[in-house]
């Protein structure tokens, strides 16, 4: 496996707050990496830096071996980095099909070809029934799925998934897990930013990076990370962390 995406000591401050503070990690082709951390750990900022929505203060981002630092979001999107938004941002007055067609235009020759590709993706993501419905009429779970569908329509090499499982019922979480795992069979890598849904993280992740207050705290396989006392302390407070060490 070769490295698809590499983040090198990336730093971004907002005023006095270091939202992302010297974070580094690598994503191999076709793998699923989860980035976990409590609220405010810097996950969304990290995604905004990678896609170019924000400019980093220092550090570098390499995609397929080339630096993509300073590229606009529409450039990184067309290069092969798809993303979803934590607070979903569908085009509300466009149909579900047009939402996905728009993204497919990035790689298609014309609108007709893009529409065909979009219809395929709606099939995969179980949204075909709602193809002609305006996106604003979809339920939250379906809008979250639409976010993934749009990212897939870019025909990307990697998708950054920002809290795609937050606020879903257990059944919907399971459906999303299946969908995320199917990405890897299509040769698409994924970086999933997750705050709370730890069972899901355990099921989908090849590797996990833990962030805390913008800093890299730990990295490893799901088993390694979940046993790490530092991680337990960050998540549950120092008291539990110490007990964990004692035991």
């Amino acid at each position, binding site marked *: 496996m070769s490295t698809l995406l590499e983040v090198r000591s990336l730093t971004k401050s907002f005023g006095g707050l270091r939202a992302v503070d010297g974070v580094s990690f690598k994503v191999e082709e076709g793998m699923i990496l989860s980035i976990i951390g409590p609220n405010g750990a810097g996950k969304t900022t990290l995604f905004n830096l990678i*896609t170019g*929505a924000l400019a980093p203060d220092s550090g570098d981002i390499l995609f397929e071996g080339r630096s993509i630092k300073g590229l*606009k*979001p*529409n450039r990184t*999107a*067309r290069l092969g980095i798809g*993303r979803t*938004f934590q607070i979903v*941002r*569908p*085009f*509300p*007055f*466009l149909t579900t099909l*047009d939402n996905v*067609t*728009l*993204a497919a*235009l*990035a790689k298609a020759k*014309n*609108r007709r070809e*893009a529409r065909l590709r979009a219809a395929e993706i709606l099939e995969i993501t179980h949204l075909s029934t709602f193809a002609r419905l305006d996106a604003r009429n979809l339920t939250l779970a379906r809008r979250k799925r639409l976010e993934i569908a*749009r990212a897939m*329509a*870019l025909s990307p090499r990697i998708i950054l998934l920002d809290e795609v499982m937050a606020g879903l019922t257990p059944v919907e979480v399971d459906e999303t897990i299946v969908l995320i795992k199917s990405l890897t069979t299509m040769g698409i890598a994924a970086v999933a930013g997750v705050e709370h849904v730890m069972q899901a993280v355990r099921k989908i992740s090849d590797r996990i990076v833990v962030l805390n207050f913008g800093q890299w705290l730990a990295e490893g396989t799901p088993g390694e990370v979940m046993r790490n006392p530092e991680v337990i302390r960050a998540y549950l407070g120092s008291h539990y962390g110490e007990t964990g060490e004692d035991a």
Partner: protein
Amino acid sequence: MKKISLVSGAVCLLVVIGIPFLASDYLVGFFFNMFIFVTVAYGWNLISGYTGYLSFGQISFFGLGAYTMAIAVFRFHWSWQLGVLTGAVLAVVLAAPLGWLMLRLRGPYFALGMLGFVQVLYMVASAASSVTGGGEGLYLPPTADLHPLYYSAAAMVVLAMGATWAVERSAFGLRLQAIREDELAADAMGVETTRVKLAAFMLSSAFPAVAGGLYAWRLSYIDPASAFPGNYEIQTILMTIFGGAGTIMGPLLGGIALSVMGEVIWARFAELHLLLTGSLIILVLLFMPEGMVPLVRRTVARRRGRIARSAAGEGA
């Protein structure tokens, strides 16, 4: 459905062609004015209705077109047709740097920025009297025959409608709508927002420019106040919203509805004209903010649904 719209379109076209032979000069003038309004409205519809960049300054291109035509005829003795075309070209050329600057602004800032630009052009037209005639204006040879103007304006409406139809079906049109709905998300989906917006802005500037040129030739006089008529800006925005912003038929239907309504109200209640028109506008915005086209579309869809259900044996 396709057949119905094709037939009704052909009938409308025949009526439009026939009007000058059948109707009084007054009516021909009424239709000419309506076509001018509708053409400006189609321009506004592209940048504001489809792209979501609400502009209060498309009338600046109207004035640019009017002055270009007038100066071409008055100073260079060109034909008015060439003057009108030159105005359109100039508007598109000017829209490039202007849009590059203005389209960084969003929401009310863009709207006000464009409003400010109208003022700038107004001042330039007033000050550069050696070219524009300043406050005294320019007098052009009066037009005896209204027919060529009438047909030019009608052709512009057809052209604007056709262009809008082509845009709506294209990849470009979908990108415009995505920018309107959520520019940040569109950017993340690979849309080169800056370029796409600029293209829409440039395209939208051509229509008011042509309308302005035709209007000035009909008036056979131009001064800053008639070149940048603020009420035209407001009228055309209202027409588009009334008919349905971001739709192919919206500016046409809204333009016809408001023109006819204005004419009828004006003829019957001259003193109450503005009061009644204003009240009507408020009622429309309250009860059908999306305009006529989406309303009609939904009603048709609902009726069809009902027919389909009753055919399937689910109806009462």
